[in-house]
């Protein structure tokens, strides 16, 4: 079962994401609501994919992504950004922020699962 870590300061959002994703996609979902503890969680959970909020207090998603990419043990983990303050109509080429795929909040389950499937490493 693929492990997904959601890093977002909105506890209500992560809780519901967890319920929905577990039920719909059969993923094992972990939550982290404190951005400053994000790296700890990543090392502990070793997820197959990370859903990362952009705007969070104390540390933003961009900083966390940079830390992950710098750590050779974690650098391979795919990251999908979730953001409330970027509109999809504003064309960021290929829906990427700094090379990362991104989804705009609120996101529909279909779009979320499609994006997760696309970015999960091939099983083998």
């Amino acid at each position: 079962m693929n492990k997904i870590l959601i890093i977002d300061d909105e506890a209500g959002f992560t809780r519901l994401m967890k319920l929905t994703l577990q039920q719909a996609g059969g993923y094992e979902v972990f939550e982290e609501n404190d951005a400053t503890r994000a790296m700890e969680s990543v090392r502990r959970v070793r997820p197959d994919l990370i859903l990362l909020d952009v705007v969070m207090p104390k540390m933003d998603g961009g900083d966390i992504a940079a830390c992950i990419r710098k750590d050779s043990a974690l650098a391979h983990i795919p990251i999908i950004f979730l953001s409330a303050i970027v509109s999809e109509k504003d064309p960021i080429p290929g829906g990427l922020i700094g090379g990362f795929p991104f989804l705009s909040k609120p996101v529909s389950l279909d779009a979320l699962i499609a994006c997760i499937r696309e970015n999960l490493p091939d099983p083998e």
Partner: protein
Amino acid sequence: MSSPTQIETERLFLHAMLESSPDYLYFKDTEGRFLRINRALAAYFGLNDPAEAIGKTDFDFYPEAKAREQWQDELCIMQTGRPVTDKLERHVRPGGVVWLLSSKAVLCDREGRVVGTFGMSRDITGEKRAQQALQTVNADLLRSRGELVQALEELRSVQLQLVEAEKMKLVGRLAAGVAHEVKNPLAIITMGLEYLNSRTFEDPNIRTILSEIGSAVERADGVIRELLDFSAPKKLNLEPQEINRLIRHALVLVRGELGGHHIKLVEELDERLPPVRLDATKIEQVLVNLFTNAAYAMENGGTLTVRTSLRQVTGMGENINPNDNFRLGAHLVAVDVCDTGPGIPESMLGKIFEPFFTTKPTGQGTGLGLTVTKTIIDLHGGSIEIRNRPEGGACASVLFKAETD
């Protein structure tokens, strides 16, 4: 007849006046020869003794033209008996220009026969200089006042632009803030709905309720998106475009509004324009905004004139000044959109580009038309100016750098 003592007293008065007056005094015979001059005039002529002047004429002391002019005056005085008073005379002396205020009159003997003239001049060079200095100071003051007024104007317009830019930044920050605070709860609701949607319920109303909630969330999200789109820095899809083609296309889009208001359309499109690097969709939006504003201003009919032309930045006149956008000598493609409506009240001209400024009734306009228009033109490195035409109506002038430069 005067008594000897009386004569003696008169002589004394006369003597005192002649010898001590700082003004220049003289008596001349009918030939213009000096009979008597006072000390002050002798000093003015550069003589040690007033007696040295006797028998001489103005021709001995003044340049010929001046002397002739004074002789003419004297002839006139002697013929008519009428005096010359307070005549301002300019004399060029070795020490520089001297200004005299002179009065002259006819000199008669006891029988009333004309025997010559006499006169009196006051040196007012000092006053004159002060006056001139005052005039220059005044002129300088006027000039610096003009410069100050102009500087103030420029400052004011820079300030307005800054205020506008600041406002847009603020709107951007506000939009981002609102988006963050509203879209996150919306995201939670959406996820909740997704979860519930995957469940089955006995009560069929629950499906309907969930779908209602879903569309309400979508609506709220749509508003926030629009706000973000409006305030986000836009990326342009720039390609060489014929502006006339975009104008014709935009005119088709507003045909309904023009026709509905019985507006006559005059196209004066210069067909030899060079191409301009533009985002066609965005510029069509700009044109549609300008056309609809004009149409709205001419509710009871009028004439919409759309003109294109090629201009060059000359630095003077023609309303094209080199600014940050346009360098001197640059070729510009100009689009003028003029209407015959009521124009824009002077007090509002500074506000029309402000976000949410509108004079339309509530619900009819957002007041974002010109704000978006200006943002798009700025992104293209162009400029827009809207002013009232002297013959009535408003005119929007848009300038873009031509592809040739």
